[in-house]
């Protein structure tokens, strides 16, 4: 008889032994279930508790890792949500700041409009000349809004330039820093006259100021009203640098425009009448 067959034949015997043994086991427990704990049950509980302790630690670890994973996922989702909300709030803050800034600019322009003795048109800068050769901007108001050629453009900070081209809905403005731009200027302290010319950069030069005139850095320069375009008394900028002259030699004055030409957004186009530009007889 082979070992396989022996094993096969033993199986029923083993089965009977095991079943009978377990039946006796069950029945013995049933007999002793009057409330007291049997010794067998005590040993089983002891051995099982060891396994349960191990499995408990294992289970806690697995559960802890799982909970950590779940928490991590939750934290990640929460983080994503918070980040999204943060972005939205940032955008909202930027929008509100922009609105506030716009309101402040408009408010400032309105105040200037109230102060100025001329009628004016408010306009927004919609484009800037990107070339090396010209300093020009485009505004969103044209002939339909009443804009005309050579009308002065300014901000609350000072003179910006003049209108050089007009369309029905937009106009082009030559900045005072344009190399082809020129304004009649006057030093606020010495009252000396001169010609403020753009140098194609971010500054202007003030020419034809006698070397005998006393000029100081930081001195304000206003429009003289002698050029037939800009009325008298508008702020152009301030003296940034002086190349002192003397005798027959004129001062070399660099002017920093006060209008903030690098960051123009809202401007005023002055609607001047002929009498606004009439020269004083004494000046003539």
């Amino acid at each position, binding site marked *: 008889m082979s070992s396989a067959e022996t094993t096969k034949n033993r199986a029923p015997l083993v*089965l009977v032994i*095991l079943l009978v043994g377990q039946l006796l086991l*069950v029945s013995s*427990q049933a007999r002793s279930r009057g409330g007291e704990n049997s010794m067998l049950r005590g040993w089983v509980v002891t051995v099982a508790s060891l396994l349960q302790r191990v499995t408990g630690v294992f289970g806690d670890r697995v559960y802890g890792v799982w909970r950590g994973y779940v928490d991590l996922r939750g934290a990640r989702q929460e983080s994503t949500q918070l980040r999204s909300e943060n972005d939205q709030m940032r955008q909202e803050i930027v929008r509100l700041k922009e609105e506030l800034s716009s309101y402040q600019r408009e408010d400032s322009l309105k105040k200037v409009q109230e102060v100025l003795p001329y009628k004016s048109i408010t306009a927004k800068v919609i484009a800037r000349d990107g070339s090396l050769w010209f300093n020009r901007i485009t505004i969103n108001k044209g002939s339909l809004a009443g804009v005309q050629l050579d009308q002065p453009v300014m901000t609350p900070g000072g003179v910006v330039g003049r209108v050089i081209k007009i369309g029905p809905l937009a106009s082009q403005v030559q900045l005072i820093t344009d190399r082809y731009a020129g304004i009649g200027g006057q030093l606020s302290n010495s009252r000396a006259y001169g010609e403020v010319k753009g140098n194609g950069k971010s500054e202007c030069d003030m020419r034809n100021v006698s070397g005998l005139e006393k000029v100081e850095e930081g001195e304000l320069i206003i429009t003289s009203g002698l050029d037939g375009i800009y009325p008298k008394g508008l702020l152009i900028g301030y003296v940034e640098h002086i190349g002192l002259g003397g005798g027959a030699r004129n001062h070399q004055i660099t002017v920093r425009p006060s209008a903030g030409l690098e960051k123009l957004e809202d401007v005023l186009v002055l609607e001047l009448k002929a009498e606004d530009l009439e020269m004083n007889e004494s000046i003539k």
Partner: protein
Amino acid sequence: MNIFKIVLVVLVVVALQGAFSRYISQIDYTDLTLIVAVYLSLKRNPLQGTLVGCLAGLSYDAVVGGPLLGASGFAKTLIGFTLSTINVHFAIDRKLMRLFMVILASAVNVLIFLGLYGLFDSQASLPISSTPSEIGKLTAFQAAGNLILAFFIFPILDKVFAEEPYVGGRRARI
């Protein structure tokens, strides 16, 4: 088949059943040891089936089971022997048949288990009522739970107990 591997797998399964039941209440509707017992019984070796059933059942009784130590052992011993003996004569170890055997074994296991409690536990410590409809419902739930678990566990056990090819009287190492 390596006996140590069998014992180890049975103990791991019992441990998992005990560990998971602390966190997942639905695990109560399954019996991992029964699934392993069924799997190892379908190897055309009645002695192995009987012993594995006994080991799995007693382990279950010790760690997870109720107050009657040996009730589950008795049921699973009988199931292990029966399945392995039938498998000697009929091919019930095919993949689909194995799953069907799990359903059958689950039902038999519950019935024997409850029968033993009915016979020996006069204090009725099982937390179920004895109405046939409730017993039937619980039996169906456990059979369904075991079937679902077996669907995933059997392929794993197939890998764990993958037999080495038999070459020239020695098991070939691949």
